[in-house]
């Protein structure tokens, strides 16, 4: 196991702590006033990831995601529970932070490298790569604070990715810099991931999480809601965020379902049969039932009145258009109505050249293998 967290709890101190003098402290304690308070920022988080895992952490604002990253990187100590992290960690928390504003870019590279535990020789050998990757060749002796925010984050990303970390922690940083750099950094990221590095990413972009992560941790107000399979947890998170399902319902589905049906699969099924996406209520109904399988959904749809009606409507339309001249539009119509797919462009040309009638084309499709297979499938399912 690369990273293992067991039952982490962290009590966060808040209140007026930042601008207190000894005088205020003495006056307050004489008056028996106490403007310090505490809250449970993380409450019972346990998970483990191993070599090559890419973990995404999701949750709303103030869920405790960044605090959790600080616990993993060792910046904060948990109040209870154990953290086990194996290997050297390169973390990018909050863009361009953790540098010394007065020092130059060159000095900052060595400072950050030294903080990550590397020595002079190693950093000297990597220095040119880092500068080149960040594109800051002309700013090597500029004080860090004079860089633009884009440059700062580029530098941070370049250092973290070029020193070959064993664990990479990223907090909302993949959208770094301009388009060109973003492309470059995503590529670098992918090559890092493929080299077997363990990565943790906090992101509000579910698309990014779905694309990159193989495991997901969902926390809500400090509590661990779900940990595990990416697609389904992202689906559940979306259902919860849109108010369609409660936390308990999400957990219930994830923990009890034997075979997850993802939202994508559901959308596909509905599109193919009914030509529309499932409504929120329908999706909710499927997700509430842990017994749901794709087969079950398909059967239900094919048996539904809506599907019957849709079929009847198609037939009626075919009847209605019987006498119409065979235009390109009509060819498309027939293909859609009977085969649920558009004609290939060669088909259209072929039909138009033959100058067939509507009736003939209908019969031709009717007798085709494809249509028969489709009908057999439907009958079989019914």
């Amino acid at each position, binding site marked *: 196991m690369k990273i293992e967290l067991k039952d982490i709890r962290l009590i966060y101190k808040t209140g007026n702590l930042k*601008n207190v003098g000894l005088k205020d402290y003495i006056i307050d304690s004489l008056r028996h006033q106490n403007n310090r308070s505490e809250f449970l920022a993380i409450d019972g988080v346990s998970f483990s990831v191993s070599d090559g895992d890419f973990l995404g952490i999701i949750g709303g604002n103030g869920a405790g995601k960044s605090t959790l990253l600080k616990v993993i990187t060792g*910046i904060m100590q948990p109040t209870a529970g154990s953290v086990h992290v194996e290997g050297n960690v390169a973390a990018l928390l909050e863009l361009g*932070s953790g540098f010394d504003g007065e020092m130059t870019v060159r000095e900052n590279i060595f400072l950050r490298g030294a903080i990550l*535990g590397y020595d002079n020789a190693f950093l000297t050998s990597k220095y040119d790569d880092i500068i080149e990757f960040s594109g800051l060749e002309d700013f090597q002796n500029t004080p860090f604070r004079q860089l633009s925010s884009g440059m700062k984050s580029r530098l941070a990303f370049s250092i973290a990715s070029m020193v070959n970390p064993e664990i990479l922690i990223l907090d909302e940083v993949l959208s770094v810099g301009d388009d060109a750099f973003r492309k470059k950094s995503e590529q670098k990221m992918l090559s890092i991931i493929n080299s077997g590095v363990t990565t943790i990413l906090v992101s509000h972009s579910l698309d990014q999480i779905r694309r990159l992560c193989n495991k997901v941790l969902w926390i809500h107000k400090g509590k661990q809601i779900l940990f595990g399979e990416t697609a389904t947890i992202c689906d559940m998170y979306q259902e919860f965020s849109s108010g369609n399902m409660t936390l308990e319902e999400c957990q219930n589905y994830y923990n009890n379902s034997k075979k997850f049906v993802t939202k994508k699969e559901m959308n596909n099924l509905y599109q193919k049969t009914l030509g529309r996406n499932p409504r929120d209520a329908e999706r909710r109904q499927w997700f509430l039932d842990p017994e749901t399988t794709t087969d079950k959904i398909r059967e239900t749809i094919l048996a539904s009145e809506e599907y019957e009606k849709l079929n009847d409507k198609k037939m009626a339309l075919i009847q209605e258009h019987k006498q119409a001249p065979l235009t390109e539009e009509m060819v498309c119509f027939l293909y859609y109505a009977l085969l649920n797919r558009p004609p290939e462009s060669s088909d259209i040309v072929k039909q138009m050249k033959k100058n067939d009638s509507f009736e003939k084309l209908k019969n031709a499709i009717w007798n085709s293998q494809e249509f028969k297979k489709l009908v057999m499938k439907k009958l079989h399912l019914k």
Partner: protein
Amino acid sequence: MTMLDRIKKDRFLFQILVKRDFNRKYKRTILGILWSLLSPLLQLTVMALVFTQFFGRNKEHYIVYLFAGNLVFSYFKDSTSGGMSSLMENAQIFTKVNVKKYLFILSKNFSALVTFLLNLCVFFLFVLGDKNLHFSPRYLLLIYPVICLLIFNIGVSFILSSLFVVFKDIKYLYDVFTQLLNYFSAVFYYVDSYPERIQQIFYVNPIYVYIRYFRIIVIEGYIPGLPTHLLCAGFAIVSILVGSLIYHKNNKNFLYYL
């Protein structure tokens, strides 16, 4: 792992930090590092002009006496007030990156030590200039109070920086405190005008003890007795013990105050 092992591991980081702290102090001045030598000399000149009339009229080696006092005291002041603000100054770094926070305190102390050693060289030039004072192997013993003072300063820095993180007005109080301490350290006057009992009380002040050690070796020309040695070490040990204890107890909570 003991603290020393860890320091070994973080040696390169430590080097960078010391270099940075040392450079930064004089970065904005035209004279650069030269200023670190010039500023105590200027201070010495002013003090010599003012105080020689009052305290040094019938005394031999008053300039060297004054220099020894100033040298030790300003090292103590530099080291501890720098150490005090070191955590606050580097909060930007250690709240975002995992790094041993005490390295920042130590680096400030070592950069102050470098300044001190440079000034010590100038001090020796003054000793050389005084015809009645002669270098002897005895001077090598000065390493002892310097090491004790270094440890003492680190201990005090640990205490002050921990306090400063929590109480932001400590800085002003400490300025006042060092000013008072300066008056009680016999930097520019002689204690022999006080009765014997009062003179003993001065030994409660660690800085006075360290200054005294310097003056005995350089001016009075003998090796201090065992009690002075024990006192030097004792202050250093108590300071570093109390300092590490306070730091160790509180360092996990610093993050909330910054």
